[in-house]
């Protein structure tokens, strides 16, 4: 019982040692980038009457 428990415990922590840094990295890359695209006018106003 102890051996099984210990093996499971060790396997879980090996997985978490990979998973937790991966999650943190993925979260970091999901941050919104502070990129500033300035507003851009593509065409002048159409004539009135539309």
């Amino acid at each position, binding site marked *: *019982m*102890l*051996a099984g428990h210990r093996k499971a415990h060790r396997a879980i922590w090996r997985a*978490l*040692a990979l998973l937790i840094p991966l*999650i943190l990295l*993925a*979260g970091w890359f999901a941050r*919104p980038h502070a990129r500033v695209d300035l507003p851009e006018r593509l065409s002048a106003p159409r004539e009135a009457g539309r």
Partner: protein
Amino acid sequence: MSVRYTPVGWNANKIVYDALLVAAIVAYILVFIWAAERPGGAPPYDDATIRMRAFGSCAFLMLSVVLAIGPLARLDRRFLPLLYNRRHFGVATCVVAFTHASYVLGWYFAFSAHDPYAALLTSNTSYARLAGFPFEIFGLAALVILLLLAVTSHDFWLSFMSAPVWKALHMSVYAAYTLVVAHVAFGALLAPVLQPLQIVVPACALGVVALHALAARAEPASSENQGWIVVGAPDRIAEGRAIVVPVEGGESVAIFRHEGRLSAIANACAHQNGPLGEGRIVDGCITCPWHGFQYRPEDGCSPPPFTEKVATYNLRLENGAVLLDPKPNARGQRVEPLAVGETLA
């Protein structure tokens, strides 16, 4: 140990432990709110959001500490008193996390014609992308696990489910922690400006992982020996203490010396698999270092009225060396202690 179940078996150590625990939580919440509401400038968070953040970050820190106690106690046994009452720490963590969730439901998901729980699950369905992922679902899953563990934390459930099932169930706390890390990584950490949380959370999570890796390295390797194992000279074992011998299949055996005689029992307490070999003889009984469960050296039985039993092992003396039979006896089977002469200091 208990023969009947009471809601909480209080004693002086538990009271001091819980007092410090509650003091830490109350201090954290009050100081957090005070720091967030500092006058001067417009506070970027409203009161409900400040409390949401206070309880959420508190729960994360608490869960990190709870998961650090185990490996700390394996690396330095002076941390064992923290482990003794760890369950209260876990239940308190669940209460703090639940309070966090209540503020979220009562603020972000309230005031609409929809049921708050339905709104929580349906307001954001961007499951296909990382940025804007509905991170609330991670927190909800973690909270469900924490609630389940808190509800089944009592020794009644341990006995009702049997130790292996209870242990397996309570290992899901690791899943809860991973979910909490994801909840924060895809939620609060995605702030538009750099925040202290973005350093504290990864530091805690990676610290917990590192502690577990260190503690795993300190574990004895398991032996693949067949047949009797040579343990060495009897004077390796001090009076009232044990040495731990790994045997086949990852199990290990604790060999104790009591009044100049050796006895071998399984190195896993019947209560929660505590390392009996790191315990002592107290009042003639082997005493677990975790929760103080006791066993008689000669038969691995708890003294009456208690009923716990662990397996015993056979020992013999050959050419001045102690030999251990790696095959366990039945739990509670009596084995005459091996006389090895006078007590050594």
